[in-house]
């Protein structure tokens, strides 16, 4: 569930970029806010990938490896 939540945060950030461009038309830390948010959203993406890998696909991988092909 946490993995799915992380993916949702990432896609929400990506999809709402035009919305934020309209609402927040200012710069912070002397750097474009959108670019910062864009990069930070990748932390959620990578965390989601890690959790999905650990909780789901590693199980199938182990299952497949146990069986001699």
């Amino acid at each position, binding site marked *: 569930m946490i993995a799915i939540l992380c993916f949702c945060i990432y896609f929400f950030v990506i999809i709402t970029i035009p919305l934020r461009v309209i609402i927040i038309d200012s710069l912070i830390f002397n750097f*474009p806010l959108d670019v910062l948010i864009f990069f930070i959203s990748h932390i959620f993406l990578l965390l989601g990938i890690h959790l999905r*890998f650990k909780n789901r696909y590693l199980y*199938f991988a182990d299952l*497949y490896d146990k069986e001699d092909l």
Partner: protein
Amino acid sequence: MSVVNFTILILVVYLVGLKLVSILAHKKSEKNTSDYFLASRNVGLFLLLATTVASVFSTATVVAGPANFYGKGTDYLWYFFLVMLPIVMMPFMLKFYRIGSLKRFVTPAQMLGDFYNSKSIQVVAAIVGLVSLIPYAVAQLVAVGKTFDSLTAGVINYEFGVTIAAIGIGMYLFFGGSRAVIWTDAIQGVLFSILLVISAFLTIKWVGGLEVFASVYANSPKSEFNVSFRFYEYLISWFSFFFLPYIWQRAYMAKSAKTLTINIALFGVIVFVLFFIVWIIGTASLSIFPDGISDVDNVLGAIFAKHAPYFGAFVLVAAFAAGMSTVDSQLLSTGSIISKDLKDVFFKDKLKISEFSFARLVTILTLVFIYFLSIGLKSASIIDLVVLGISFCIVFVPVVSGMFYWKRSSKAGALISLLFGALSFLINQFTDIITYDLLSSTVALVVSVISFIVFSLIFPSSTKYDEYQKILKRS
């Protein structure tokens, strides 16, 4: 020693090194097509990760990446959409591995032909795979040629640069096959990753530090997020990436399912880090060349020609390594498609040479074909060729998804979906018949999905859905 001579010396040393690796690989190789194309399906984690990253990170990243962040700015952040690929790559690639290992498939089209019980689907899928690989492979040689020309100030001109790259690849491809490709990919991947990191630090230093970097970027119009519908189209079109035959075949090569899964999870992290570095180099160029340069594809070469000409020799090697490590895998994949999927259709039993010799011959002939195309496409945009190659594979999305997730998928639906999808892509790409300003991949995706669903429902047929689900332990 002049800069040009130093550059040539470094390249000669590098090519000799690659040749030595290919000799070692040749000694370990077995003379069969499974070993030649898939390294006997026994590639461990480090080598698999290195070859996946080296194959994905082409000159489109090392050369065209900085160029596009420099020339077009923040709009090109869509490059980073590749980082999310593991979300879909993991479930699909794991399935490719499981079924591919059990049924001893070498090419993607073999799996599709087997599932839908159709030789026609295998042939059409093979042709789609070939068409997608060729522009992508040409882009690599074009980029290597351009970088040679830029960093040696024309002493090694474009044509000569492309020739050197083609001969270098041919040397190790002919003898070592996939084992040589994987070993050299590992060396080349590590090499260009290190050189990219060093290059990023150097460019930040030349700009005047992080503060100046941030300030120049913030005040540049290129930092503005001018998001259009195109931005979202790229989000979708990246999904076709792992349907490229040479990426798909990485799943067949893995030593175990666990190796493959860890490889994909780590792949996301490495892609993010390397793209971030490429973004820094491209963005820093905004303050190094505030007035622009004549050919933006040469920006990487121009930075080093200006600030550190001798180190530029190593950057050329990095671009060379990125290009070679991608194009060699693509050539090998092309050779496997022709010898496994298309040979019987066009030659039947007329050929008197062994399958192994045929595979090697075809791979080298493909290299010659791509070489001549690259010479003729000197002025082509690298990124356009790459996007063309990747996005054409979008037509695989419904057909492959149907194999695992839709019981009612049928042979007619798959065949018509592939044909209509490919046709609509080519019409949108090369004619003005479709007047909407959409990416060809978007048009092809919509057409292929609709035709797959409609024709599967109208013309049902038996597939191996239940057998595949059983193999995958999903039922």
